């Protein structure tokens, strides 16, 4: 008899088959904390082991342009944890907000990126 730990390694594949990912998490994150147009600041959570919330956005203030989907955050999904889906928001920043030396000639330039709800606080 094998001494290896036994657990269902295909649980995520079963959840997503025929539906897709992140569609399989739709409706599972509960009510969204923010809405389109809200001003939000990116929290500087510890960036240990894995994150997809770029360090250069930490502490910066942007605007919610869209609620994009519900999904486990990268910090969970990257280790096979899919039990706590949350809302993902598309946030637009002024480039000038992110890069202090950004040229005033292009002061209208923006950058848009997706961030899970845990990183957002009202600004």
């Amino acid at each position, binding site marked *: 008899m094998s001494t290896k730990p036994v657990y269902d390694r295909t649980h995520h594949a079963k959840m997503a088959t025929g539906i897709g990912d992140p569609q399989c998490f739709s409706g599972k994150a509960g009510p969204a904390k923010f809405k389109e147009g809200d001003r939000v600041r990116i929290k500087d959570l510890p960036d240990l082991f894995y994150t997809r919330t*770029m*360090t250069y956005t930490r*502490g910066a203030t942007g605007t919610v342009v869209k609620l994009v989907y519900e999904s486990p955050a990268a910090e969970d*999904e990257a280790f096979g944890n899919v039990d706590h889906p949350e809302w993902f928001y598309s946030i637009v920043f002024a480039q000038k907000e992110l890069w*202090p030396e950004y040229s005033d000639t292009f002061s209208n330039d923006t950058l848009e990126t997706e961030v899970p709800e845990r990183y957002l606080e009202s600004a």
Partner: protein
Amino acid sequence: MSSSTRNEVHRHLETVGYMQPALHKQTHAPSPDLIDHTLYRAYTRASHDVGGEADVPIVWAEKEEEIWELNTFATCECLAWRGVWTAEERRRKQNVDVGQTQYLGLPYYGRWLLTAARILVDKQYVTLTELVNKIDELKKRAKAEHKLGEYVTPQAK
């Protein structure tokens, strides 16, 4: 805007820009008091989070995928399809767990391939003993049929 966080972020980006992989430096194995918060954060960051790091320009060249690269991609997608990993788990292993030296030093699909082997060992589909023995067997077979390092023209099955 919380300026202390922004100051820290920009100091961090400046620090990691200096942190190119080095083979031999006198600063290796520092005593704990030499690692302040700034250095600790720079060392422990996710190596794929390169946005904002100062670096030299690199040459962009268009290149078609080679057969081994396409086979590697297909293998990794099959592992996802059979539930061995999710895309996020794969990215963690191939972009971050490999560390900065391998992240910047190995070819893109080289990291995919290395990671496909790694997930099979980590999740106990094969043992490292089995993998090492197989690689050794293939090396010997290749050496018997070709010179080591000889280019072998890919053939369709």
